């Protein structure tokens, strides 16, 4: 169980650290490596202290994203449970060959001779003015790969329990941490692990379903608070995993609310939200009165604060779009 602070909460980055530490404690086959993660403790200060505790099982690597992912693959099919960190999710592209062509295919193509239990952790997301190559959320790049699980927790508690589950999972797992969440504090997880591939209804409502992942879930929850003040009851679904994808929970919610909005920090074309909305339409059209997507423009992510702020979905945009689509009069919508 993760250690809470005095307020009973835990910082997201600490939850990640404790999940790694607790699994390394529990299972000597877990190892962790990445650039600057051992002695320096990581550029987002997620992993200080692990090297001191676990010695040669926590390794500083060269800037070799491909060798890292392939090294994790080779170690995973040979008895270890490697976790490796790709500093920014934008850099995942350099490790994709081994992730996609080796790790994700091993169980199936080998005819189930062996499994590939590895975890790649990476910091994704915009909102910090890091510019086009340090801000992306490459969920769709990963989601379309059979054999690779994809997890993107929204809270510190979930990050802890989902990461422990990911490390114990016998399949390769991409674990995406949003940079803007590292410093948030949330209640400590009441459980050691949560199942991968299960969405959660994190707020109940009856008028509209808001679906998102990671930081987007928190935007949706704040939007739901504001919408409640306007008399709109929004249900919020946190997908938590993008593969396996829990379409059941979304369909059940849509059957109740008859309206769905999916909020994605990424381009609309080719995104996870458009894909999921397609599935909901195919399987639940009879339940739908309205459905739409809130996503980013089809350009690279801009740097300047004014441009980046306008680029990203936020709770204001969610509140505004839900209000107008539900036909709330402008004066009601603005509370005027």
């Amino acid at each position, binding site marked *: 169980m993760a250690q809470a602070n005095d307020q009973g909460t835990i910082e997201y980055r600490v939850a990640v650290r404790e999940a790694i530490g607790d699994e390394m404690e529990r299972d000597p086959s877990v*190892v962790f490596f990445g650039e600057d993660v051992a002695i320096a403790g990581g550029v987002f200060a997620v992993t200080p202290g692990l090297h001191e505790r676990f010695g*040669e*099982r926590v*390794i500083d*690597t*060269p800037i*070799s994203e*491909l*060798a*890292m*992912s*392939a*090294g*994790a*693959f*080779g*170690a*995973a*099919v*040979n*008895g*270890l449970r*490697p976790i490796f960190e790709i500093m920014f999710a934008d850099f995942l592209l*350099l490790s994709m*060959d*081994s992730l996609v*062509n*080796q790790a994700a*295919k*091993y*169980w*199936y*193509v*080998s*005819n*189930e*001779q*062996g*499994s590939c239990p590895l975890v790649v952790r990476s910091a994704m997301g915009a909102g910090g003015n890091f510019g086009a190559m340090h801000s992306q959320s490459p969920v769709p790049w990963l989601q379309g790969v*059979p*054999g690779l*699980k994809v997890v993107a927790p929204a809270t510190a508690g979930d990050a802890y329990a989902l990461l422990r589950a990911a490390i114990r999972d*016998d*399949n390769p797992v991409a674990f995406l941490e949003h940079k803007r969440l590292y410093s948030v504090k949330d209640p400590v997880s009441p459980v050691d692990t949560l199942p991968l591939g299960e969405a959660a209804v994190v707020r109940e409502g009856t008028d509209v379903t808001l679906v998102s992942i990671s930081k987007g879930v928190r935007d949706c929850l704040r939007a739901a608070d504001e919408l409640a003040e306007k008399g709109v009851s929004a249900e919020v679904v946190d997908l938590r995993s993008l593969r*396996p994808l829990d379409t059941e929970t979304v369909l059940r919610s849509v059957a109740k609310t008859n309206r769905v909005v999916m909020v994605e920090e990424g381009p609309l074309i080719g995104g996870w939200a458009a894909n999921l909305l397609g599935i909901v339409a195919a399987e639940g059209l009879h339940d739908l009165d309205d459905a739409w997507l809130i996503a980013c423009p089809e350009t690279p992510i801009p740097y300047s604060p004014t441009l980046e702020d306008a680029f990203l979905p936020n709770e204001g945009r969610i509140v505004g779009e839900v209000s107008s689509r539900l036909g709330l009069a402008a004066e009601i919508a603005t509370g005027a």
Partner: protein
Amino acid sequence: MAEKTQATAPGAEIDAVEARDLYRRMRLIRTFEDTVQQQFQKGNVHGTTHLYSGQEASGVGVCSMLREGDKVAGTYRGHGHSIALGVDPQKLMDEMLGRVTGACGGRAGSMNVVDVASGLIGCFGIVGGSIGAATGAALAEKLRGTGNVAVAFFGDGTSNQAYFHESLNWAQVEKLPVVFVCENNLYMEFTPIEDVTAGAIGSRPQAMGIDYRQVDGNDVFAVREAAGEAIEHARSGAGPAFLETMTYRFVGHSRSDPGKYRKPGEMDEWKKRDPLILGRRALEERYGIEAERLDEIDAEVAKQLEEIVERGLAAPFPDPGSDGKEFK
């Protein structure tokens, strides 16, 4: 009768029976590849194949120096690596034929065979994949303190890839027990290696301070000796070793390759140095094994392959209705 070799590497000295087995295994690979080609032309092997014909001494020499627990990563040109390591040729042929009895139940095909029981962590359809995978396997062996090594087979062209440079560097920094075996057959697909490669391949590991040796890759005894030293180096904890086996591919790069890129006379010169010819000569000279005995081996292997194909063609195809799950 059995004259000993001048081997210096530990375990490189063998008796006549073992020497004969080396020859048999090289012959098995050659005949296996000839058979795959025939079955490909008959439409029984699908997709594409990359044959190992001409390079047999490299894989057989290296794998003959491995011990139980060592791991091997091969390439898309991996039938030879697999057989050299001891993968059942029946299972391998059945895989080529797409049968449920294949090494991977027909899911892998020619380029992607895995055989965990033999220590074959995989053959990799992506150029360079073997290098990274073996490096990771070696990391696991080091952290577990097993004393096992991992071997990566790959070609000359692969030395220009990120997998090569990144993995060699990391393996040397971490002193991993991995042996990089570069099978230099002078071409990457259809392009002469010198046209696309700056400097000598061997200069690259040497620049990183990696133990390096180059050997006549068509002489199985020479390969054994050099591989024995390289493996010993890696096993001792001194870090990775790099072995460049100089060899030549006697067939097309893959199924459709007229081989127009070859230099005039080059093939004829290399054919004089066919690993099977060199192997026979060595067996006769060093061990006094008579040519008739070697002809018998050839005939036995030919018969073995005939039976393998017969059984393989009689084996069932996988049932699409029972195909597997995405996740374990």
